C-alpha cells in the first residue's frame, strides 16, 4: 500500500529540476530583468590607480549632461554618515572614497541618470585629481619596515597588519618534531582568484516615501543578513526593509558581502524618490568585489620512518586587500584554516596566521568553500605528497597509514574539531581501483624511459561543511541556524519557504523531495520559494555548503511537525486513539487493521474542514534548526596527467572522484555539483588567477585576461560514491557543493608534480601555466607565483 518513494520524487530520486522549466525558456527572473516604473540607472566611477590621495573631485561637467538626475561623491555620502560602512568581518570599508583610494577599482563617485548609457557618459565627465602614493601589492611589502600605511583612516592602526592568530598545541608539536625521523617542508602561494559568477552584482533600490518602505532587489546569497545589516547600520526600521533576491546567475561566495554599490543605490533611491538600478559590469565585478584565496602557506611535517605522522606546523600569511571584508562567520580570524589534516590521525599540530592590508581589492571571501578550507586542504595534500616523497614511500600507502579509521569516530582532529563519520580508506580504495593505480605506476615508468612525463596525483580530505552550529559561528552576532516554513493547503498541495537562497543548487527541486520523503506528498505538489525577506522565515542564506546541512534539516524537521499534527487528525478521522495509529509513506492506518487508513491529503482537508474538537485549524508550521555539529563529507580525488616537456603544457588523462556526502537526496543534482566543483578545481590548477603588477594594476580585469576554462579545455570526470550517513543530520545528508573545489586542486597539482619530480622540481605555484611548468623543467627548480607579476615574461 505504501507509496513508491522514487515515483513521487522523494529521497534518492534523480528528479528533473522544476526551476529548469523557466530557465530553458529564457523566463528566469534575474535582477537585471526586473523593471520598475520610473526606474533610474546608476553607474559607478572607479579609481584607475591603486593608492592615491584624492585632491579634488569635479562633478560639474557630469551634472550638465541631459538626463543626469544625481551625482554622488564620498563627501555627499558623508553628510548622511554613509561614506564608510562596517564589513561583515568587523572592519570598515569606504562606500565612496573621501580621503584616499586604496585599490584600483575602488568606488569614487556615482551617477544616477535616465538610462545606463547616459550614466556612463556622465561618469567619464567627472574629473578626479589624484596624488599617487607608494603601492603595496603583497604581504612582504606590507610588513616591510617603513611601508606606507594603507589604513591611515583607522585609529590604533600603526602598521598594515590586520591580525595575528594562533591555534594548536605548540609544546606538544615541538616535542613531536624532536622525535621525528624525517622532517618535511613545503612553502606555497595559493593565488588570488575570483569566484566570477557569470552574472555580476547588482541591485534595484526602491524607496517609497508614502509608506516608508524600502524594497531592494539584490544579487545576494543571504537576503536576511542584508536586511539585518541595513536595519542595524542604516538604522532603518527592520519591518520597513524588504530584500528580494530573485534568480541568481551563480554566486560561489561572491554574492555574500555587502558592496558599496548596494548602499549607494539605496541612498540614491531615497534622494530621488525613484527606483534606482545598478548593474555592475564584468570589470567592476572582477576588480572590486570579493575575491578568494591569496594566502602564503608554509609548514613542516614530522614523520616516523614507518610512515606515521607525528606532528604538523603551519604558518599562513593572508593578503586581505585594502579592507578586511571576507564575510566569514567563524570566530576564527583565518576562518577554518585549522580544519587542515582533519582526515588524518595526527597527535600534535600548531598553526600561526597573520593577515595584511595591501592596495588590492578587499575580500578573501570563501570562494565555493567554507572559510579558508580550500587553502587548508590544498596545503594539507601538497604537504602529504612532499612528506611521502621525502620518506620514499608510496603516496597512497602513506595516506592509508595515516587516515582515520572507520572505528575511530568520533575523532578529534589535530586542531580540535570533532569529526563523526566516514569510510576514508574505502573511498581511497575505490578511487585507486577505478584509476588502475598499480598499472599506471608501471605505465609511468615505461613512459619515462621514452621521454614522456606521466604523473598521478591523489587528494584525500574531509572538510567542515554547513556553518554553523551557533556555538562557533555567527555573523554580526547573529547565530548560524536556518529555517523552513511549510504550509499544506486543504487539497494536500503545499508551499515551502526556507531561509536559504538557491543560486543554481536546485533547492526548488530538492527541498520538495525532502517533504515528499517525510510526508508522502508528491514533490510535484510542493512549490518552494526563497529569497524574499517579507515572506521567507529568517535564515542565514546559502554559502559554505550550508543549505542541505542546515536549511535542508529544517525542512525535514518542519515536515515532521506537520506529520505529528496530521497523526492527531488521522486518529480523529479513524476514530481510534493516536497510539493505535501507524505511519507509512503518505498514509496513516490503524495498527490492528491496516486497511483502515487515511492519506496525508485527507488529513490536510480535515485540518480545514473536520478537525478534532479543540484543535487549532490549518496545517502549517515553522522549524528553526541549529545543527549540533558541522557535517564532514569525505572525498578521494585522483588525477592522471601527461606533461609535455617541450612546451610545459599538461593534459588531464583521467580524473576519478569518489565522494561520500552521506545520503544523497537527488543523485543527479549531487553529481552536477561535484562536476562543477571539479571544473573550478581544474581551473585553479591550470589557469584561473588574478594578479597585480607592481603599480597595483589588476591583471585579470576581464575575461580576456582572466582565463576561465571552456568546454574545450575542461576534462571529463568519472564519479563514484560511498555513502556514510551523517549521524546527526535528520536525513543523514552532508554538504557536497564545495568538496570538489576544495579537494580537487591538489589532485591536479600533485599529478603534475609527480610527473616532474624526477627532475628535482618540488613545487610550482598555481596556476600551473605552461610557461611556469616549462621553466621549472628547463631550470630544474621550483617556481613561485607571488605577485607582482613579472612584466618581462615571454
Amino acid at each position: 500500500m505504501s507509496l513508491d518513494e522514487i515515483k513521487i520524487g522523494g529521497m534518492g530520486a534523480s528528479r528533473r529540476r522544476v526551476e529548469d522549466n523557466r530557465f530553458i525558456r529564457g523566463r528566469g527572473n534575474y535582477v537585471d530583468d526586473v523593471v520598475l516604473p520610473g526606474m533610474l540607472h546608476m553607474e559607478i566611477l572607479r579609481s584607475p590607480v591603486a593608492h592615491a590621495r584624492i585632491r579634488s573631485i569635479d562633478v560639474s561637467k557630469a551634472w550638465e549632461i541631459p538626463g543626469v538626475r544625481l551625482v554622488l561623491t564620498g563627501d555627499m555620502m558623508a553628510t548622511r554618515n554613509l561614506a564608510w560602512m562596517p564589513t561583515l568581518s568587523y572592519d570598515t570599508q569606504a562606500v565612496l572614497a573621501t580621503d584616499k583610494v586604496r585599490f584600483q577599482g575602488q568606488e569614487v563617485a556615482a551617477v544616477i541618470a535616465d538610462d545606463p548609457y547616459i550614466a556612463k557618459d556622465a561618469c567619464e565627465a567627472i574629473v578626479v585629481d589624484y596624488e599617487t602614493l607608494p603601492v603595496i601589492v603583497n604581504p612582504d611589502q606590507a610588513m616591510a619596515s617603513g611601508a606606507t600605511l594603507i589604513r591611515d583612516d583607522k585609529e590604533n592602526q600603526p602598521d598594515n597588519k590586520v591580525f595575528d592568530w594562533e591555534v594548536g598545541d605548540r609544546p606538544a608539536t615541538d616535542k613531536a618534531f624532536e622525535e621525528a625521523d624525517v622532517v618535511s617542508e613545503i612553502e606555497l602561494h595559493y593565488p588570488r582568484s575570483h569566484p566570477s559568477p557569470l552574472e555580476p552584482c547588482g541591485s534595484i533600490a526602491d524607496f517609497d516615501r508614502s509608506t516608508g518602505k524600502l524594497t531592494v532587489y539584490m544579487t545576494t546569497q543571504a537576503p536576511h543578513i542584508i536586511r539585518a545589516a541595513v536595519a542595524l547600520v542604516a538604522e532603518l526600521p527592520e519591518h520597513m526593509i524588504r530584500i528580494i533576491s530573485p534568480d541568481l546567475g551563480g554566486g560561489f561566495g561572491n554574492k555574500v558581502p555587502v558592496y558599496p554599490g548596494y548602499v549607494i543605490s539605496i541612498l540614491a533611491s531615497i534622494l530621488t524618490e525613484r527606483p534606482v538600478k545598478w548593474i555592475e559590469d564584468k570589470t567592476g565585478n572582477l576588480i572590486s568585489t570579493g575575491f578568494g584565496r591569496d594566502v602564503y602557506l608554509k609548514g613542516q611535517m614530522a614523520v616516523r620512518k614507518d610512515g606515521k605522522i607525528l606532528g604538523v606546523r603551519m604558518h599562513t600569511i593572508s593578503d586581505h586587500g585594502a579592507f578586511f571584508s571576507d564575510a566569514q562567520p567563524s570566530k576564527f580570524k583565518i576562518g577554518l584554516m585549522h580544519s587542515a589534516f582533519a582526515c588524518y590521525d595526527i597527535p600534535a599540530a600548531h598553526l600561526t596566521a597573520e593577515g595584511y592590508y595591501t592596495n588590492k581589492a578587499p575580500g578573501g571571501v570563501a570562494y565555493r568553500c567554507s572559510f579558508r578550507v580550500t587553502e587548508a586542504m590544498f596545503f594539507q595534500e601538497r604537504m602529504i605528497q612532499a612528506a611521502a616523497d621525502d620518506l620514499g614511500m608510496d603516496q597512497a600507502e602513506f595516506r592509508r597509514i595515516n587516515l582515520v579509521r572507520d572505528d575511530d569516530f568520533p575523532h578529534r582532529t589535530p586542531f580540535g574539531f570533532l569529526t563523526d563519520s566516514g569510510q576514508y580508506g574505502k573511498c581511497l580504495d575505490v578511487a585507486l581501483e577505478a584509476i588502475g593505480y598499480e598499472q599506471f605506476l608501471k605505465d609511468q615508468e615505461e613512459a619515462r624511459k621514452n621521454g614522456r612525463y606521466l604523473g598521478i596525483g591523489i587528494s584525500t580530505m574531509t572538510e567542515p561543511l554547513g556553518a554553523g552550529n551557533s556555538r562557533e559561528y555567527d555573523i554580526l552576532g547573529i547565530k548560524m541556524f536556518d529555517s523552513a516554513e511549510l504550509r499544506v493547503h486543504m487539497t494536500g498541495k503545499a508551499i515551502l519557504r526556507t531561509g536559504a537562497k538557491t543560486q543554481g543548487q536546485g533547492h526548488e527541486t530538492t527541498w520538495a523531495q525532502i517533504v515528499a520523503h517525510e510526508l508522502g506528498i508528491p514533490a510535484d505538489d510542493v512549490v518552494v520559494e526563497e529569497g524574499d525577506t517579507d515572506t521567507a522565515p529568517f535564515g542565514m542564506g546559502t554559502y559554505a555548503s550550508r543549505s542541505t546541512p542546515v536549511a535542508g534539516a529544517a525542512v525535514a524537521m518542519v515536515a515532521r511537525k506537520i506529520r505529528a499534527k496530521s497523526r492527531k487528525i488521522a486518529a480523529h478521522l479513524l476514530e481510534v486513539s493516536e497510539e493505535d495509529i501507524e505511519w507509512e509513506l503518505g498514509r496513516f492506518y490503524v495498527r490492528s487493521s491496516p486497511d483502515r487508513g487515511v492519506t496525508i491529503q485527507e488529513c490536510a482537508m480535515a485540518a480545514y474542514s473536520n478537525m478534532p474538537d479543540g484543535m487549532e485549524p490549518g496545517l502549517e508550521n515553522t522549524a528553526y534548526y541549529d545543527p549540533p555539529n558541522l557535517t564532514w563529507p569525505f572525498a578521494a580525488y585522483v588525477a592522471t596527467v601527461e606533461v609535455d616537456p617541450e612546451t610545459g603544457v599538461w593534459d588531464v588523462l583521467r580524473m576519478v572522484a569518489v565522494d561520500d556526502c552521506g545520503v544523497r537526496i537527488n543523485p543527479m543534482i549531487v553529481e552536477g555539483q561535484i562536476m562543477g566543483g571539479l571544473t573550478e578545481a581544474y581551473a585553479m590548477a591550470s589557469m584561473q588567477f588574478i594578479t597585480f603588477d607592481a603599480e597595483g594594476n589588476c591583471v585579470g580585469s576581464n575575461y580576456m585576461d582572466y582565463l576561465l576554462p571552456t568546454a574545450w579545455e575542461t576534462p571529463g570526470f568519472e564519479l563514484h560514491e560511498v555513502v556514510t550517513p551523517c549521524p546527526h543530520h535528520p536525513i543523514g545528508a552532508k554538504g557536497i557543493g564545495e568538496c570538489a573545489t576544495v579537494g580537487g586542486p591538489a589532485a591536479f597539482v600533485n599529478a603534475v608534480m609527480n610527473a616532474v619530480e624526477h627532475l628535482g622540481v618540488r613545487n610550482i605555484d598555481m596556476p600551473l601555466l605552461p610557461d611556469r611548468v616549462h621553466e621549472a623543467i628547463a631550470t630544474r627548480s621550483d617556481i613561485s607565483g607571488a605577485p607582482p607579476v613579472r612584466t618581462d615574461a615571454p
Partner: protein
Amino acid sequence: MTSLFEEITETSVDIPVRRVTITVNGEKRSANVEPRLLLAHLLRQGFKLTGTHTGCDTTNCGACTVLVDGRPAKSCTMLAVQADGRDVMTVEGLATASELHPIQEGFKEEHGLQCGYCTPGMMLAAKALLDENPDPTEDEVRWALSGNLCRCTGYQNIVKSVLWAAEKMRNSAG
C-alpha cells in the same frame, strides 16, 4: 517598439536615432534606436526579451549569444543597427506554444544547467551546431560551445544535453 506615444524629454531632443527593422523570432519588429545601442540591450530593454543575458560585455562569455541569420552572434558587442534587416533568434524563439525544442528538453533531461544564466546562449550555440551537423561527436560539441562559458556545471552535462538533443532530432527526422 510600439507605443501610443513616445515622450520627448530633454535627453531625447538632440540624439540622432535610426529606425531598424529586425525579424525577431519570426516576427517583424521596428524601433528607433541610438546608433550606439547594443543589440543585447534592444532585445532586453526594447523588446522585453530578457532571456538574452549579458555576462562579460567583451564577447567572451557567450551568455548573450543569439542567432543572426542562423549563425551564433554575441549580442553584447553587436550594435542594434547592425542587425537591421536581418533575422534574429533568441531563446524565446526556441519553443513553440505547445512544444519545447529538443535542445531545451535535452538540457533539462541531462541536467545541463544549474543557475541558468549561460543556458540561453549555450542552447543557441548548440542549435547552430546541430543545424549544420546533426550527428556531432563529443569533441565537435565541445568545440562548438567553446565560445560560451559556464561556471556551474563543468560542461560534461551540457555536452550530454546537446548529444541527447541531436539523437532526438535525428530520430524524429528519420
